[in-house]
């Protein structure tokens, strides 16, 4: 067989999809404290990635840089083929509002508002009509098994219920990526597992990418892949040969 007869490898016809979001050698310090040192990570569309590592290693800083909440001192962040870290503030906020969803350990809900208000809020801020916003909010509350709690103030909910409302609120905008920082950190392990299963299950149904910071191996086990942050650097365990 000559070279010309060789079948074209499938990988040349259909290249694997490029990353949806990527940090390229980003560094960031707080004053003199370096939090990230040339950290790189790349996440494919629809991937569920867990970011693990010891406390203080730079996980939250990395997540905030990827989400455009912080700008790195050096390095680049790319999202969907665009440079994110050099966007103008207004453009970056708009992107965050429309394409990104956030779930944090606690604190992103307005405790005086009801579950339905909290989930409808991002839509209302995005000028969706009131009726439409509440209709969508309620359907998301139902998907997260919270239909009955729609009129309860979120300040009165249990930790697990509140995190499910937060997930509904993150998903209601149909984001491309959900950024979650220790979303189960304040929950007992069974509740945490349920919350994580709901987050991952719904994200998969929606085709959303998820980047979740967690130090809990059980939570990370729901992801497709994990990377470990140590001393501000990302080690990708799958890039390391077992044989070396």
């Amino acid at each position, binding site marked *: 067989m000559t070279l010309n007869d060789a079948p074209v490898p499938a990988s040349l016809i259909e290249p694997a999809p490029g990353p949806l979001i990527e940090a390229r050698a980003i560094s960031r310090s707080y004053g003199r404290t370096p939090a990230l040192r040339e950290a790189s990570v790349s996440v494919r569309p629809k991937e569920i990635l867990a970011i693990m590592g*010891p406390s203080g290693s730079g996980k939250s800083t990395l997540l905030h840089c990827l989400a455009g909440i912080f700008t790195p001192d050096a390095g680049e962040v790319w999202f969907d083929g665009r440079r994110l870290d050099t966007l103008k503030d207004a453009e970056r906020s708009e992107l965050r509002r429309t394409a990104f969803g956030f779930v944090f350990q606690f604190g992103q809900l307005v405790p005086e508002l009801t579950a339905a208000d909290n989930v409808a809020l991002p839509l209302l801020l995005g000028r969706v009509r009131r009726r439409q916003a509440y209709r969508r909010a309620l359907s998301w509350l139902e998907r997260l098994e919270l239909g009955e709690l729609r009129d309860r103030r979120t300040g009165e909910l249990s930790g697990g219920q509140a995190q499910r409302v937060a997930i509904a609120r993150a998903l209601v905008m149909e984001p491309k990526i959900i950024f979650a920082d220790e979303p189960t950190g304040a929950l007992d392990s069974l509740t945490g597992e349920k919350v994580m*299963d709901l987050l991952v299950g719904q994200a998969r149904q929606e085709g959303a990418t998820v980047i979740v910071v967690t130090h809990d*191996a*059980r939570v*990370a*086990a*729901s*992801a497709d892949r*994990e990377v*470990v942050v*140590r001393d501000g650097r990302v*080690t990708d*365990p*799958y890039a*390391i*040969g*077992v044989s*070396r």
Partner: protein
Amino acid sequence: MSVPLALLGLLDREPSYGYDLKRDYDTYFGRGKPLPFGQVYATLGRLARDGKVSAGQSEPGAGPDRKRYAITPRGRQEVEAWLAEPVAAEPYLQTVLFTKVVLALMLGHDAAGYLDAQRATHMRRMRELAEIRRGGELVDMLLADHGMFHLEADLRWIDATSARLTALAETVRPA
């Protein structure tokens, strides 16, 4: 897992045939590692020899070994004693993981790389067990849980050791 004791325990419920014992064993304890028929009958033979079970008459025309087995008082005593006795809490002080890390450091190999690779292997297994847990019935869930808790303990040790490699290297390297 002690197969003789598990079979003896199953027989302590009610007399049973080899085939049914195998099926129950596979359902509750086999989990992807079914017991070969040969082993079932060999084990029952030994238990009968030791007076822990009694074998009934073969039923005519019903296959090679259609004997009904019943537990004897002696067998029952053994099951009771076994169930009451706690399993030794293993000290886990000389694990393979620990030995590899120390030797890697002594020989100047890449102990951190080894720990990262080990961590990835453990996480991969965690994901498999999480998958079993999600789709499974209660028995599968609890078995998967057992595995996951042990993996978690190892992972915590791996992380704690990764964070102290420099200090450990100083301890184990010749001055």
